[in-house]
Structure formats: structure tokens, C-alpha cells
């Protein structure tokens, strides 16, 4: 009887832990888009929106889209929205990388920094805050597990 009780307690404790970890891992990147949409397509929409992985509809501010199209000029149509900024645990805490070529250009222009075409652009937390303040609905953060 006692052995049964102890085994039950053991499994409960394990379950709780596994549940916490698995839920966190499952939900951590649910805010990413199901499919990224080009800037031009969004500008054509009456109410610009994207669908996220959790099935919710994320409305995008038209003013931000206009600002981005003004920044990029002719290349604007190639930009995919939302701009994905990845956390980079390999570089260190508080470091973020941007891989997309046009996204790099946008972010470098806003921050007034240089970037290399072949390498991902590395930005740091204070810079991320500036970007998030300016591009509230058109940027998103990917939490990298690596």
C-alpha cells in the first residue's frame, strides 16, 4: 500500500515538471506567423492582418507599413512581414540576430548602423527596444532554443 502511494507521488512530481516544461516549450513560439506576407500584399488589404501559429489574427498598423515602404522604396514589395528578430543564446544573453536581407536593411537604417550582406545582423537589447517602439506590430521575436 505504502509502496503504491510513494510510486504515485513520484509520478505526480515528474508529471508536474514535465507538464511545465512541455507547455512552455510548446507555447514559447506560438506568436510567430503561420505564413509571412509581403509588404505590398498587406498594403493592398483594407485591414492588414496576419494569422499566427496559435490561430489568432494579428492586426498590423497601416502607418508602420507606410513607414516601411517609404524606407525601402522600390524594394518594399520584397519585404516579408513581420520582421523576425531571433534571440541568440550562442552569442550571449541580450543579443538578437536578424537574418532577412531587407529586414537587416530596415533595422540598420532605423538604428543608423552598418551591416554586412552575408552575415546576420546582431543587435543588442537597447537597440531592440528602439526597434520595438517604432515597429510595434511589424516585428516579432523568435525565442531560439539552441
Amino acid at each position, binding site marked *: 500500500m505504502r509502496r503504491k502511494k510513494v510510486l504515485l*507521488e513520484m509520478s505526480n512530481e515528474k508529471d508536474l*515538471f514535465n507538464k511545465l516544461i512541455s507547455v*512552455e516549450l510548446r507555447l514559447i513560439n506560438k506568436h510567430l506567423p503561420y505564413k509571412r506576407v509581403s509588404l505590398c500584399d498587406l498594403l493592398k488589404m483594407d485591414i492588414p492582418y496576419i494569422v499566427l501559429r496559435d490561430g489568432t*489574427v494579428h492586426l498590423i*498598423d497601416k502607418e508602420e507599413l507606410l513607414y516601411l515602404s517609404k524606407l525601402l522604396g522600390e524594394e518594399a514589395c520584397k519585404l516579408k512581414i513581420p520582421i523576425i528578430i531571433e534571440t541568440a543564446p550562442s552569442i550571449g544573453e541580450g543579443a538578437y540576430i536578424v537574418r532577412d536581407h531587407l529586414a537587416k536593411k530596415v533595422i540598420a537604417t532605423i538604428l543608423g548602423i552598418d551591416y554586412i550582406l552575408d552575415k546576420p545582423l546582431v543587435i543588442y537589447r537597447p537597440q531592440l*527596444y528602439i526597434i520595438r517602439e517604432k515597429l510595434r506590430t511589424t516585428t516579432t521575436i523568435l525565442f531560439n532554443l539552441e
Partner: protein
Amino acid sequence: MSSLLRIRPTKIELIRLKRRRELAKKVHKILRERLTILVNEFLSRVRIAYRVRLEINSILRDVYRDSAYLVSLYGDGIFDYFENTVREESRVVIGFENIMGVKSYTAMVRKGVFTDPVIELTGFRENSIKLIQKLIELGRIERSIISLGEEIRRTKRRVNALEYIFIPKLETTIRYLSMKFEEREREEKARLKRVKSMLEKKKGVA
């Protein structure tokens, strides 16, 4: 609450525990990062809300002044006239925005179409539309502040649970199991030595 996890003291369990500890540390790191970003989003929105409130106060002053002027000039009927000259009403689109997994309401104002034969009315109408836009913006920001606040509290609890309960518990259990296995090994060695010496003694007697 016991500081040790209740598991079977086997080597397989020890390996599992070590793997679980690594995973827990990773999740803890990600959650802490998320918490930092959420807190910053929260603070930045509080700052914006304060700025928008100041703007609303100044616009409100202008709207009151203009309306008082219009009433004094044209009488109370001016506001009926104001209503009649709206060709297409302004609309507010309400939807959701997702801030790092935090769902919050958002709204957009779509400006209507008006005809203003009275010149004084144009300024008043522009100011009132600006006021509505700012009020809706403030509502959106304050709603997101509330949602972010709730999410910050939840995430903080999870981070603390991992940091102060789960990871220490795993570490203590791993340490306990390692010590137990080491002790078992030492015991085994001592036993073997003793058996060996006994056998040697027996051989010597024979």
C-alpha cells in the same frame, strides 16, 4: 516540501535527471529573456500612455474652446448641423494584437467623409477626430498594459518556480544520487578487498 525528488536510485534515473536539468535550465533562460522583454514592453507602453494622456489633455482644451466659440457664434443648433454634414461616418476597427504571445485588443480609426461649409467647423471637426483617435489609442495602450502586467506576473511565477524549486531540487537529487553511487562503489571496493584478503588468508592456511 522535501528538497529531493522522489525517484528510484538507479543510474538511468540519474542520466534522465541530468538531461532534465539541462532542459530546465534552457527553458529558464528563455523564460527570463521573455520576462525581460515583456517588462520592457510594459514600461515603454506606460511611457507612451503618459505621453498620449498629455496630448489628449491639450486636444481636449482646443476642442472645448472651439465648441464654446461655435456655440456662441451659431447657437446650440450648430451641433445638429455638424451631424448632418457627415457623409460617411468614421469607423473603429477592433481586433487583436499579439505581443510576444500576449493577446491584447487593438483598434484602428478609419476616418469618415465630411463636408464643412462653415469654415470654423473644419478645425473643430479635425480636432474632435484627433481626440477620438487619441482616446482609442490610449484605450488600446492601457488594455495592452493590463494584459502585459498579467502575463508578466504569470511568467515571473514560472521563472521563480524553475529558479527556486525545480532546478535546485533536480540539482540536490543529482548530487544525492551521485554521492549514493560513489558510496556504493566505495563499499563494493572495500568488500572486494576484504574478500580478497580472506581468500589469501585461506590460501595461506591451506
